[in-house]
């Protein structure tokens, strides 16, 4: 991936903060909600935090898309995100029907986020094939 613009540097910082928040809040959830030490409304609030942290990762990608001033790099990111979204929606829809017919085991919904980020990787590879640099030395 490209790492030139200030928008990309801000993206990396935001992603790092969201990832750190995810790890910390997941630990909090496991420690206090998973063990049953916290119940009721506080448990719901604590359990929301890891998901909100992952939402922060999505927000970081969205901000990169908005703040990237280089139109070509922005186009590549949009394309990459569309591929990730198409990949994720297709897979979870197919899986949902298979699950409905009791042909595959249940998978927790938060795996959708992991799939989407994996889809970004696929999008990046697809971009490389479609828009690979030519005449790099010129």
């Amino acid at each position, binding site marked *: 991936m*490209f790492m*030139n*613009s200030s928008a990309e540097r801000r993206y990396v910082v935001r992603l790092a903060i969201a990832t750190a928040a995810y790890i910390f809040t997941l630990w909090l959830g496991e420690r206090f909600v998973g063990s049953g030490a916290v119940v009721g409304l506080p448990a719901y609030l604590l359990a929301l935090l890891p998901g909100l942290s992952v939402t922060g990762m999505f927000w970081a990608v969205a901000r990169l898309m908005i703040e990237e*001033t*280089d*139109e*070509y*790099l922005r*186009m590549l990111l949009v394309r990459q995100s569309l591929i990730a979204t198409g990949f994720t929606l297709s897979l979870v829809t197919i899986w949902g029907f298979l699950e409905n017919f009791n042909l595959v085991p249940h998978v927790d919904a938060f795996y959708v986020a992991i799939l989407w980020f994996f889809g970004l990787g696929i999008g990046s590879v697809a971009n490389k094939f*479609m*828009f690979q*640099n*030519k*005449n*790099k030395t*010129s």
Partner: protein
Amino acid sequence: MNNKLKVLRAERNWSQSDLAAQLSISRQSVNAIETGRYDPSLPLAFQIAELFALRIEDIFFSNK
């Protein structure tokens, strides 16, 4: 869409990085435009034309 950006750049002895810096875009963008893998937006096409003191149609032209 085709263009003669590479020729214009070579005439001025500019590297892709030089041109990218003057347009405030990435070198990858210049490369993609020069090789026809990406058609610039109208504002960027105007910016390129102004930099070379030419009209857009003197730099970019249809494949047809």
